[in-house]
């Protein structure tokens, strides 16, 4: 893991000392910040093999003289950055341009890859490797919450999914290593089945249309990206351990990699064990969690122009759901809602996970082969296969508690051929064809009529994006996508005698998008993007039928649902003032015709278990608009202040009321101070942060929800850390406290708000050893 993607390296050879075989080589370089191109003064450059080092000047420049031609491990560090290591072959005088990420929160997806094919007019933001590792005890979605404009929809602290610009689930595509994550994404209580630790970085593309990413996104895409394995023939890796006090959770991650003779490989693994969480006043019984994940990445360069990647990952989790949040019927629900503390709370902490719980296993296999043709044209072929098994266990009569109430097996294939290259002299084309197949089945034996029927879907798509090449100041982009989707559903009729019925749907979807990026200089950049796209309704929106604990009621689909039509415009502005004050502002507006949502019905459904709330999928027209803001002030290199603000408004235009599940406005701010390095103790930092979440005040019609949104809240956090470095290894130690004041609060986007308080104080210790 020595090469971090935030660091882009280019080697230039000076032709002069071609014959230098003796030890008089000069190694020079310039160290810049990746996101802003600001030279990083006082960076330390250290060649580990020979124990020589130096410090960069105010232009970021350094020079090491009189070294011999050899292979070197070079470590580069700078205050407030994650130190980076490189494996470099030095044979003659060498000039390196090295990027560190001092302002990692300002990075976007385009800058990270720095390659031609990833150029885009869309806006994106990322979370870096160092932040992923230090928060590896959390879920993918909770880590993404670090990005302004991203919120998290939860069902207790164990299950969370990202909400980007007010949309989630089927409307936000999650790309795991280039493959659209295909799980049971429809459920509010289903989290993406991805271990964040496999990622080098996480990005959120806040786009108007995700043309190349396929899926059913209504604009925004979450990218979970690994990086290439470094060309270092030695074994390197990291071991990461986190202990958290709330739930006494242990997280152990390891990653090892080597550029072996046959191929380059990397193996990552994660183990998580966590017991009952604790709200300030009581234990949240049965909220434990277990996770076992493994991933293998293999890269093989068959030829300088031909490279193949193989990737396999297994994600396996078992998550307990708060017992008191499981509803019997409307009376139970109303009783549970009215209580000061939930039913079935135990006085003791436990690691046991009983019912209700979820057990999910997800396999992903990916093979990608890339061929570099002449004049930088690239042809790529990609296959991704996924197998997802989801079991949900409810409280049931007798011994059947060990039998799942929901047991779904989803098998999917994705095939893709893509082309990137110049067409003529000035037009850069990205185009591709994609084929997707999904087969979802209920595994018999649950004894419960399934909420989601068996179905199969096939989709073929083509997309193309054209850009002007050599875009220095202005980049223009225009693209389109067309897809044909066929869905076949098989289910039992709802009337007696029950018979199997087969229903077919065919959807034609298209998308069009255009935009520009204007980059005056390093100090000013603006993006504008507008897109129109259609999204076919998913199977849950068409055919759900039955009690769904995720919405606390009976959920019914509508098979006559039309496609959603979205028009979204986005404008972003990045600028900085004198390398001290940085601003990223983004505003968006989205109009969705035939927006699909779950409407609570006024009448309750009478069943033998009593009355139940009923939710039916309906369509309306909706407007969603919002602003994401990031400000950073760095008066000096060892002190910075960050403020993030996100605001979203969503309206149902038919009834002129607020949309449900729209995130509350929120402000996050932090101050980080980095102390002077003490010999081997480097990057000693201290961060204090606060998060204020406003009350969601736009849900005012009582029939929209069981309860009005909870009150506003403020959370205080603290983090201290240091980095101990010796020889070729380093140990990073950090201590983080969340909800330091042990505040009692409830969050609007957590379904458990009806039943229980959020977690109280949590202190976690993270140790990260890299070798």
């Amino acid at each position, binding site marked *: 893991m020595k090469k971090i993607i935030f660091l882009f390296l280019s080697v230039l050879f000076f032709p002069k000392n071609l014959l230098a075989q003796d030890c008089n080589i000069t190694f020079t370089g310039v160290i810049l910040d990746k996101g802003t191109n600001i030279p990083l003064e006082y960076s330390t450059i250290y060649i580990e093999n020979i124990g020589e080092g130096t410090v960069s000047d105010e232009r970021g420049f350094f020079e090491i003289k009189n070294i011999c031609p050899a292979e070197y491990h070079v470590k580069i560090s700078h205050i407030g950055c994650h130190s980076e290591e490189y494996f470099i072959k030095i044979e003659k005088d060498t000039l390196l341009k090295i990027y560190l990420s001092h302002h990692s929160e300002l990075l976007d997806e385009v800058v990270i890859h720095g390659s031609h094919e990833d150029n885009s007019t869309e806006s994106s933001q990322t979370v870096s490797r160092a932040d992923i590792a230090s928060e590896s005890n959390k879920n993918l979605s909770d880590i993404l919450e670090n990005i302004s404009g991203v919120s998290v929809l939860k069902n207790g602290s164990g299950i969370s999914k990202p909400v980007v610009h007010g949309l989630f689930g089927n409307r936000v595509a999650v790309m795991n290593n280039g493959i659209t994550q295909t799980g049971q994404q429809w459920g509010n209580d289903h989290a993406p089945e991805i271990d964040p630790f496999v990622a080098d970085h996480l990005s959120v593309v806040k786009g108007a249309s995700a043309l190349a990413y396929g899926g059913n996104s209504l604009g925004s895409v979450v990218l979970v990206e690994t990086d290439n394995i470094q060309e270092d023939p030695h074994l390197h890796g990291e071991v990461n351990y986190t202990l958290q006090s709330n739930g006494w959770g242990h997280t152990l991650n390891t990653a090892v990699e080597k550029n072996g003779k046959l191929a380059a490989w990397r193996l990552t693994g994660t183990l998580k064990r966590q017991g009952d969480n604790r709200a300030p006043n009581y234990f949240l019984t049965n909220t434990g969690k277990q996770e076992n994940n493994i991933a293998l990445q293999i890269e093989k360069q068959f030829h300088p122009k031909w490279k193949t990647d193989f990737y396999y990952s297994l994600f396996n989790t078992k998550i307990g759901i708060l017992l008191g949040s499981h509803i*019997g019927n409307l009376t139970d629900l109303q009783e549970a809602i009215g209580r000061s503390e939930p039913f079935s709370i135990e006085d003791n902490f436990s690691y046991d996970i009983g019912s209700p719980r979820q057990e999910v296993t997800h396999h992903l296999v990916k093979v990608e082969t890339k061929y570099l043709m002449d004049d930088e044209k690239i042809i790529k072929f990609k296959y991704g296969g996924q197998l997802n098994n989801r079991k949900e266990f409810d409280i049931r009569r*007798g011994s059947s508690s060990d039998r799942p109430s929901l047991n779904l097996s989803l098998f999917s294939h994705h095939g893709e051929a893509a082309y990137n290259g110049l067409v003529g002299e000035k037009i850069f084309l990205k185009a591709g064809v994609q084929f997707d*197949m999904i087969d979802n089945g209920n595994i018999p034996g649950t004894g419960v009529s399934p909420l989601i029927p068996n179905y199969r879907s096939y989709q*073929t798509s083509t997309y193309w994006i054209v850009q002007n090449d050599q875009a220095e100041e202005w980049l223009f982009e225009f693209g389109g996508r067309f897809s*044909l989707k066929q869905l076949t559903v098989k289910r039992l009729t709802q009337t007696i005698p029950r018979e199997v019925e087969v229903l077919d749907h065919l959807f034609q979807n298209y998308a069009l998008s255009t935009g520009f990026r204007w980059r005056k200089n390093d100090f000013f950049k603006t993006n504008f993007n507008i897109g129109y796209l259609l999204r076919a309704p998913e199977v849950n929106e068409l055919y759900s039928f039955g009690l769904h604990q995720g919405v606390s009621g009976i959920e019914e689909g509508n098979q006559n649902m039309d496609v959603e039509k979205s028009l979204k415009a986005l404008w972003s502005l990045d600028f900085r003032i004198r390398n001290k004050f940085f601003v990223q502002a983004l505003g968006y507006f989205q109009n969705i015709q035939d927006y699909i949502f779950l409407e609570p019905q006024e009448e309750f459904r009478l*069943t033998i278990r009593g009355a139940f709330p009923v939710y039916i999928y309906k369509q309306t027209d909706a407007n969603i608009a919002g602003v994401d803001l990031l400000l950073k002030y760095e008066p000096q290199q060892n002190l910075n202040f960050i403020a993030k603000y996100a605001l979203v408004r969503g309206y149902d235009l038919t009834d002129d009321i607020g949309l449900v599940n729209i995130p509350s406005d929120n402000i996050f701010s932090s101050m980080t101070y980095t102390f002077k390095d003490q010999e081997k103790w480097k990057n000693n930092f201290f961060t204090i942060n606060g998060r204020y979440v406003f009350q969601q005040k736009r849900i005012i019609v009582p029939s929209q929800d069981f309860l009005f949104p909870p009150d506003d809240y403020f959370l205080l956090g603290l983090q201290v850390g240091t980095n101990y470095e010796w020889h070729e290894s380093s140990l990073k130690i950090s201590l983080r406290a969340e909800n330091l004041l042990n505040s009692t609060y409830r969050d609007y986007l957590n379904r458990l708000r009806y039943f229980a308080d959020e977690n109280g104080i949590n202190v976690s210790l993270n140790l990260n050893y890299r070798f």
Partner: protein
Amino acid sequence: MKNLKYIFIINILFSVLFLNSCKDDDVIDDDVEELITTVTYTLTPTSGDVVTLSFSDVDGDGGDDPIVTGGTLQANMNYTGTLDLRNDAVEPGESITEEIEEEDLDHQFFFSTAGGIDLTVAYNDQDSQGNPLGLATNLVAGAPSTGTLKVILRHKPEKAESGVSTGDITNAGGETDIEVTFDIDIQ
């Protein structure tokens, strides 16, 4: 732009190829064995006609509405009540009552009246730990009146909580397996 044309043709080919390839070999599970579809409450007076209250919803949640049958009781009369639970959604239908008898510790029925009816219900059975169960009951119909009788079956109630053993549902918790309401007329 030539490339685009080919891409489009490939796309159409793919679609045609796969649109017709759907197989019909899926197993569909219609074995909804946990369902309780029918509740029958048989009230036998010390003298006179037997009254049968019933709630039946054979097709489960949704579909056709449930059929609820109330009853008329004699004023100032004692009744013995017997509850019977069945799943008639499967062929042949099966009794759920036996299952509840076997797991008596995990179940308890609760009875409540509303609408000003003069009717009291008392437990006439116990689980293996001496707490009430409610499959067997004694009812006393008082003065002529009308109202409703609600029968609730809780799964995994907290029987030790205060009031639960006397039939007060307030602190019982657990999950509702049955909640049915019958119209009653005392004449």
